[in-house]
């Protein structure tokens, strides 16, 4: 053991005292040989013979010195230093090739880093609280037989097709918290933004804010403190309506209060209720609902009845409405299954003690979800594009690898001689292979570093593409160790990947062949074939990427060109949500109507209307549609889309009325209910008969509504959806409706210039009404096309990148090919071949490579693009135009790339070649 340590230390010392030790050893050898020579002379040899014999007897000094060096220090360390230094020198010797290789790698690795940063954010990032992995979220699967009737809030459908809900009632939460401690102290929270927009008036200025209501033990159980002030405490949450305090997020502190410490104790009006700020949460803390979008405010759950009152009264005493999320921390020594089973029992008791469970219904089975990523609804949406984006990036990296491998192969065939010399001087095969791999790794390390930088610079491009232009980014990416690790790993893998070819070739270099001057050798021939195969691979990968890009671009173009059935240009959109505290229904209709009238009187406004649902905003309202005088079919006619709109809706939106009339002045809040239905609904419900004058009800026993007109079909919630049967009712006649309404303002000139004037109008009606989501209709549509646009942008960028890489590949292999064949071409020309024939020959070869690549790529595309089918719109995955264009583009680029080498070939002088020989 001690000898091992001694050896280690002496080797470590050897690593640093190399030069001195080398010198000492050389002099020791010198002395030895001198003494030996003298001895031989004494034995009667001549000076010359003795010196030679002495050297022979001593053995190979160079080899010995090498051994000595290797024994002295860590063999691999010294040689790695040597290899790296030598590798960098070799790379510096061909700066052009090196630069292209590093650039290819940087682009490939950078693209992957950027996409991975996003994928990591969408798939891996956890809440920034201590030990997020301990967090568990309570959820259950909901079906028709569930005892829980009224769940409210986000849900998702899991892989087995079950509807997963994580909403609980406040009474159920209280019972669970009191009875079950298998998850420690259970805490509750709810993201208010999924139900409504809160407005906050700070220093006389109203704006929308995001907020999370949290239980009193929330901060304590999350193990999160505050930067200044105090967190929300159990006392704040003790009595409903008490605890008018808030903790604000760091971002909100920065934006609104410029990080002023005097924010503590300040009062802001949230939905007109004065709230005192008591603390500021730490920088990355985003609450429990979302990992990436920080809430502005954290308020105690006790404030629910005041902050967002609902019709049924206080949700805190409502056992029927399930709206609250519950989390806990898995306690040490308790398994997931144990905690789940225990909580399932408690839930069953909690449900049965708070609501009556009918015989035909049951308490749904409890699920314990990992809570480290919050109730991550937004991120779950983002998961879908990730595999595709990652595969596209992977293709680019593969292409970059092929490119670099090709460059290295081209270079290594010129390095045959060098390698042969190294082998002849006693380098082992392994040593040469290691040298080649070290060089590749140097290259990939450089490329990886540059790629990391590119990825860092580009990290926000994708989140930007994926979020709407007016709102905050749905995703903020963090550049952390995972990204570094990922980039490091792919850099090493690419280094090994593209380095394997040249290294293998180097290992097979035969000693003799390389040392013979000139002449074609087997290994060169093979190198040429490998290079060509790599080019074919490059071209086919490029073809695949171009086809993807083409399909996505055409999909986006198709969607953009799609006529939504209304005039989307020149419309400014914004929403208003009259707070229920000040405007209980139907007073909210009055204030909306006042805003509508004032806007209409502005000279720049052509016409103005409002609607419950903004068009093409990925949400819609549904209602029963029960025509009068028809037998009721059980379960029939459910879920007809409807929108409650302003009087000028059809004129403002430019939806033509086919027959009947639009809403008019005579339709008021007190006149009989009227509706306009679209053509699809008319066809479905009144095929062959005139619907005008017919009546229907929106619910059993509701007021009859008369159909006064039929309008043309227009897109409602989704651009991709077919025109669904829809009816429109007047908002002024919807007496018990509340919530936000979106105004649509058709302006003369650019609608964007008009936002200020609108703000003035709304403030003149009520200064506490914030404008929500001010955007144009076109921006609104663009936002719904975010995935398509990001696919099209990413795929196009990658396609262009691939084209550049592939053209470098074609150029490289043709240039090397021509310079190898100088003799052959010269002989051809000496035998009478004309310059244009040579030109055509070289171009023909390039073309053959390109066509082989295009063909392979085409096969791959035909095999793979059907996977994209669900993402495309208005075209098939085997879209002929796309395939042909991609193929033509690649062929043209291949010809352009090989034009230079072909020209050079056609200008070879026969005489020069003969001299060369």
């Amino acid at each position, binding site marked *: 053991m001690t000898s091992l340590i001694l050896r280690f230390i002496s080797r470590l010392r050897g690593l640093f005292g190399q030069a001195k030790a080398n010198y000492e050893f050389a002099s020791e050898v010198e*002395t030895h040989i*001198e003494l030996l020579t003298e001895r031989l002379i004494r034995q009667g040899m001549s000076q010359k013979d003795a010196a030679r014999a002495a050297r022979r007897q001593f053995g190979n000094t160079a080899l*010995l010195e090498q051994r000595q060096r290797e*024994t002295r220090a860590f063999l691999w360390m010294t040689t790695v230093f040597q290899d790296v230094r030598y590798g960098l020198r070799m790379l510096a010797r061909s700066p052009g090739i090196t630069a292209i290789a590093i650039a290819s790698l940087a682009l490939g690795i950078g693209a992957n880093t950027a996409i991975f940063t996003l994928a990591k954010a969408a798939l891996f990032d956890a809440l920034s609280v201590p030990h997020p992995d301990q967090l568990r979220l309570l959820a259950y699967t909901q079906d028709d037989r569930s005892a829980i009737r009224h769940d409210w809030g986000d849900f998702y459908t899991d892989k087995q097709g079950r509807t997963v809900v994580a909403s609980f009632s406040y009474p159920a939460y209280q019972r669970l918290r009191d009875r079950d401690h298998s998850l420690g102290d259970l805490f509750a929270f709810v993201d208010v933004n999924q139900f409504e927009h809160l407005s906050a008036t700070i220093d006389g200025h109203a704006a929308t804010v995001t907020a999370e209501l949290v239980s009193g033990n929330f901060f304590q159980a999350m193990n999160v403190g505050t930067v200044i002030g105090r967190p929300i405490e159990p006392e704040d949450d003790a009595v409903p309506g008490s605890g008018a305090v808030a903790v604000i997020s760091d971002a909100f502190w920065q934006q609104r209060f410029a990080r002023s410490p005097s924010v503590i104790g300040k009062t802001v009006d949230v939905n007109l209720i004065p709230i005192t700020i008591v603390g500021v949460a730490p920088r990355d803390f985003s609450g429990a609902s979302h990992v990436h979008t920080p809430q502005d405010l954290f308020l105690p759950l006790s404030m629910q009845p005041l902050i967002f009152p609902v019709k049924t009264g206080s949700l805190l005493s409502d056992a029927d409405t399930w709206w609250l999320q519950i989390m806990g921390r898995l306690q040490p020594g308790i398994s997931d299954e144990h905690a789940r089973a225990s909580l399932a029992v408690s839930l069953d008791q909690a449900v049965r003690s708070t609501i009556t469970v009918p015989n035909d219904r049951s308490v749904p089975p409890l699920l314990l979800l990992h809570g480290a990523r919050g109730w991550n609804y937004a991120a779950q949406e983002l998961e879908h594009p990730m595999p595709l984006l990652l595969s596209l990036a992977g293709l680019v990296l593969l292409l970059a690898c092929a490119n670099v491998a090709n460059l290295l192969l081209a270079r290594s065939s010129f390095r045959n001689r060098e390698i042969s010399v190294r082998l002849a001087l006693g380098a082992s095969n392994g040593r040469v292979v290691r040298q080649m791999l070290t060089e590749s790794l140097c290259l990939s390390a450089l490329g990886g570093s540059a790629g990391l930088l590119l990825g860092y610079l580009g990290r926000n491009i994708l989140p930007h593409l994926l979020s709407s232009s007016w709102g905050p980014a749905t995703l903020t990416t963090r550049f952390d160790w995972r990204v570094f690790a990922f980039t490091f790993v792919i850099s090493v893998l690419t280094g090994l990947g593209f380095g394997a070819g040249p290294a293998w070739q180097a290992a097979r270099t035969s000693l003799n062949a390389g040392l013979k001057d000139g002449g074609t050798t087997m290994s060169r021939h093979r190198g040429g074939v490998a290079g060509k195969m790599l080019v074919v691979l490059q071209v086919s990968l490029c073809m695949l990427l171009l086809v993807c890009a083409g399909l996505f671009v055409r999909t986006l173009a198709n969607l953009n060109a799609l006529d939504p059935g209304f005039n989307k240009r020149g419309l400014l959109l914004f929403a208003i949500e009259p707070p229920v505290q000040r405007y209980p229904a139907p007073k909210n209709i009055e204030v909306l109507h006042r805003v509508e009238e004032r806007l209409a009187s502005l000279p720049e406004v052509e016409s103005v209307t409002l609607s419950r649902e903004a068009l093409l905003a990925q949400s819609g309202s549904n209602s029963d549609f029960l025509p009068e005088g028809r037998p009721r079919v059980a379960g029939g006619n459910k879920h007809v889309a409807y929108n409650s709109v302003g009087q000028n809706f059809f004129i403002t939106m430019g939806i033509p009325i086919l027959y009947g009339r639009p809403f008019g002045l005579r339709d008021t809040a007190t006149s009989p209910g009227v509706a306009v239905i679209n053509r699809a609904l008319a066809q479905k419900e009144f095929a062959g008969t005139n619907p005008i004058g017919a009546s229907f009800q929106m619910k059993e026993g509701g007021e009859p509504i008369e159909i006064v007109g039929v309008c043309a079909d227009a897109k409602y919630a989704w651009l991709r959806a077919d025109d669904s049967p829809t009816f429109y009712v007047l908002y002024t006649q919807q007496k018990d409706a509340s919530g936000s309404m979106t105004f649509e303002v058709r302006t003369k000139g650019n609608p964007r210039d008009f936002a200020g004037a609108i703000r003035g109008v709304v403030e003149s009606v009520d200064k506490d009404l914030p404008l929500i989501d001010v955007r144009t209709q076109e921006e609104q549509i663009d936002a719904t096309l975010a995935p398509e646009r990001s696919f099209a942008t990413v795929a196009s960028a990658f396609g262009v990148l691939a084209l550049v890489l592939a053209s470098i590949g074609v150029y490289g292999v043709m240039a090397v090919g021509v310079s190898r064949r100088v003799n052959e071409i010269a002989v051809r020309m000496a035998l009478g071949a004309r310059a244009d024939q040579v030109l055509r020959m070289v171009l023909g070869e390039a073309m053959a490579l390109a066509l082989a690549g295009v063909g392979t790529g085409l096969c791959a595309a035909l095999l793979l693009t059907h996977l994209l089918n669900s993402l495309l719109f208005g075209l098939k995955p085997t879209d002929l135009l796309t395939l042909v264009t991609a193929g033509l583009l690649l062929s043209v680029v291949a010809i352009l790339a090989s034009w230079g080498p072909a020209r050079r070939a056609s200008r070879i002088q026969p005489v020069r070649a003969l001299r060369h020989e």
Partner: protein
Amino acid sequence: MSKGEAMTAEKSEVLQGTLDLMILKTLHALGPQHGFGIARRIEQISEQVLKLNEGTVYTSLLRLQQRGWIGFDWGVSENNRKAKFYSITKRGLKQLAIETSNWETISGVIGRVLRLESEESS
């Protein structure tokens, strides 16, 4: 018996091991010696039977130093040059004893095996 370095392990493990042993024994018997002196002594003892590149002696010497079995002092050689004079250390003496008994055991075993072979073949 010491193990040879991985580099040349397959080629001359036994030779290297024996060379190490011979050097240790030489230093033990003759006291401090420089590399040349060691080479001469081995030449003399082996009576020219063992042909060896004298350079390898230095590889052995370095290895023995690294294990802490020998040390060295600077001295002056016969041709008036500064030279390293190697001497065996305490740990080296202990190792020599172990290696010697190891060698005797192994050579005894190999000798018996070889005799057995020749008996069978006769």
